[in-house]
């Protein structure tokens, strides 16, 4: 195994944007089959309307510049839903650029943001 990022000299300590530290690389211990054992089926219940509203608000906040912003701690499953949503929006940005003039898929009727359930 090559040198890891956490061992690489000056790599992580060089960050000049303190609001984002590089993702550190923790020990890799899990076997492939074990990876999702403790998150299997993940206790992720179907989102309620309140969940949806809260996630939409968080997503709107997430789309704003992070500098100087104080966010309430997010739960892991909220972060994951937001990451899936952001990925989908990145795909949309690329699709628009590569296929100008092509109609985009129907957008959900959620004010200002994407329905995370469609991205999941």
């Amino acid at each position, binding site marked *: *195994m*090559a*040198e*890891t*990022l956490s061992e*690489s000299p000056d*790599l*992580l300590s*060089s*960050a*000049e*944007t303190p*609001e*984002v*530290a*590089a*993702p*550190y*690389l*923790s*020990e*890799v*211990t*899990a*076997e*492939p089959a074990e*990876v*999702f054992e403790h*998150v*299997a*089926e*993940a206790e*992720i219940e179907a989102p309620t309307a309140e969940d949806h509203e809260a996630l939409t608000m968080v997503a*709107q906040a*997430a*789309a*704003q510049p*992070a500098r100087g912003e104080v966010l309430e701690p*997010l739960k*892991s499953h909220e*972060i*994951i839903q*937001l*990451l*899936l949503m*952001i*990925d989908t*929006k*990145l*795909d*949309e*940005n*690329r699709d*628009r*650029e*590569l*296929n*100008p003039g092509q109609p985009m898929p129907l957008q959900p009727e959620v004010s200002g*943001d994407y329905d995370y359930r469609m991205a*999941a």
Partner: protein
Amino acid sequence: MSFWTATRKLITGTELKQRAPRSRSKLTLRDLIRRESAIGSQLFGQVPAGHRREFFYLDSHTWVWYEEWLDQSGKRQELTTRYEIHPNGVLKVQDGQPYAVVEGEELENLFLAIRMYYDRTSREIYKRDPLTQQSILA
């Protein structure tokens, strides 16, 4: 008429010529990824001398962090880390290593980096508001 358009007209007496639309169709996905990665590589601070860094969204909920540097003996070292976003968790895999679940601080840092990536690429490459995805070109 915008302030700058009006100012130009006042100074030069002429209207600003309409620019020909940029031909976007010639761009490839690779081009876009390269542009995005140029931004992604900046999200973690200045890249140390002798290092090369890439951080970009590949596709299908997969992110790539590539780092290349010279070790003390001058030998080139490289490390590719792939993050896969799944509905029930984020997985990380490195060359020759088994998958690992990304949790805690690492997950939060990855989230912050991806947020900034989306925000900056939307504004700087795609010229769109990251929240509404509406064009920000005047």
